[in-house]
């Protein structure tokens, strides 16, 4: 009969994991990894490797990466709690800022490559098209979060108020999903939308369950 996995192996793995997460190189590594999609897009744009419609490719992939980073940053807390790895929290701010980094690229690609930086046209477009309006709202809601991401802002606001403010990200997740859903709605092409909605829904649902169970003693 094979021996059950030794119980002592788990703490050992956890210790290893912890030292990996706390390693001085951990943050730079995550930073570089998070920057890779951008580097790839930049490289592809310069070398004309974005396919037949480079503007569309840039706008869409920067939007995809915004959604992906939103999933990643919202996964930090559930992962931290479930795996009991407090060290994970170190990465949350940087990952959150990468959400903003990619949404700025997304908005800039749209404004530049699709609208030629024609501000009156962009304004009209945002008002006229619900799916653009929803996406733009998500960007607007993310802006105060990015602006209050440094330590002094947390101090100035007070931890409690800062935390409340940063709960806006849950609303952003909803708006971003709706934006993506609407964009695909014209073609009844929802497979990918459901994947992101499923991931984000699970991550937010986990928080809701935790909140409710915490309230009940």
């Amino acid at each position, binding site marked *: 009969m094979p021996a059950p996995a030794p119980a002592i192996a788990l703490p050992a793995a956890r210790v290893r994991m912890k030292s990996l997460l706390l390693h001085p190189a951990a943050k730079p590594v995550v930073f570089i990894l998070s920057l890779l999609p951008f580097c790839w897009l930049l490289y592809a744009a310069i070398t004309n490797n974005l396919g037949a*419609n480079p503007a569309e490719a840039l706008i869409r992939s920067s939007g995809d990466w915004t959604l992906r980073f939103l999933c990643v940053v919202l996964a930090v807390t559930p992962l931290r709690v479930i795996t009991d790895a407090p060290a994970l929290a170190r990465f949350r701010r940087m990952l959150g800022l990468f959400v903003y980094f990619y949404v700025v690229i997304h908005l800039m690609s749209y404004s530049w490559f699709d609208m030629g930086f024609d501000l009156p046209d962009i304004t009209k477009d945002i008002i006229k098209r*619900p799916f653009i309006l929803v996406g733009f709202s998500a960007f607007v809601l993310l802006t105060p979060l990015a602006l209050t991401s440094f330590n002094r802002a947390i101090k100035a606001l007070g931890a409690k108020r800062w935390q409340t403010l940063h709960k806006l990200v849950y609303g952003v997740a909803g708006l971003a999903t709706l934006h993506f859903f*609407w964009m695909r709605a*014209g073609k*009844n092409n929802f497979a990918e939308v459901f994947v992101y909605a499923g991931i984000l829904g699970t991550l937010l649902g986990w928080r809701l369950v935790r909140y409710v169970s915490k309230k009940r003693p």
Partner: protein
Amino acid sequence: MIIKTHRDGFIHPVASDVTPARVYEGRRDMIKLMATGVAGAAMASWAARDARAQVARPGKLAALSGAKSAIAGAATMEKITDYKDASSYNNFYEFGTDKSDPAKNAHTLKTTPWTVEIEGLVKKPAKYALEDLLKLSAQEERIYRLRCVEGWSMVIPWVGYSLSELIKKVEPLGNAKFVEFVTLADPKTMPFVGSRVLDWPYVEGLRLDEAMNPLTLLSFGMYGEVLPNQSGAPVRLVVPWKYGFKSGKSLVKIRFTDKMPATAWNKAAANEYGFYSNVNPDVDHPRWSQASERRIGDDGLLAKKRKTLIFNGYEAQVGQLYAGMDLKKFY
């Protein structure tokens, strides 16, 4: 004097635009190659060029050349889209919803044997084998603008003949008012037939007078070769003044009716895709503007999009079909 410029949508034709710059610039390289005596293999691409064809053949599929067309509007002088872009950036939902999917997946499409059935309100219903359909009228080259409802455009040298040639042969009855185009829906060879994106088979339709317009093309080839599968092999429709989705691919049935056909995209989203779907910069799609378009491969990433023309620039040829109609209502 009115001076029209590129900025207000006037496209000044220059004859040299027809030959892609890459091709004529390539001649010098060819001469150099010959001089150094390594031209043997490179000569193959010269052999692939057909004397009659106005564009260089990509050399991928069987040749199908067309003679110069005498029809007005049959050959725009604009720069032709690269074959690579035209054959890799496609909407053909039977093979996937991403624009790179059809080129990857359409190799499974079986185009021989192929028949096209003509039925409904005609004096001579018939079942044409592709070989007979190919010979029904002389093949012509038509260099058309293609404007997709999504806001991009291409310039494609099609090979085919006016659909009216076929219509005249089958003799529509007096009560035939519309033509319905049914395309192949074979779940065995088309992996996405059965997905719930659209109601299959993909059906499109035209008014009979639209179908009779000489610009309406029954196409069998492009770039001097037979159609690649992802572009609707072996036979498709090309209606250059309407959004691309009106031009059904891989046709199997043409039916003459007295009622307006229920078309695929109209059934899926009637408020977004009307039966007419004429290219019109003044009638926006509910989710985006149709006032401008991005010319694939031509306009660089930083170039401004070009203005979309009413009826895709074919107003002189087709405008009279819609005289007195409210195009905002009949979109």
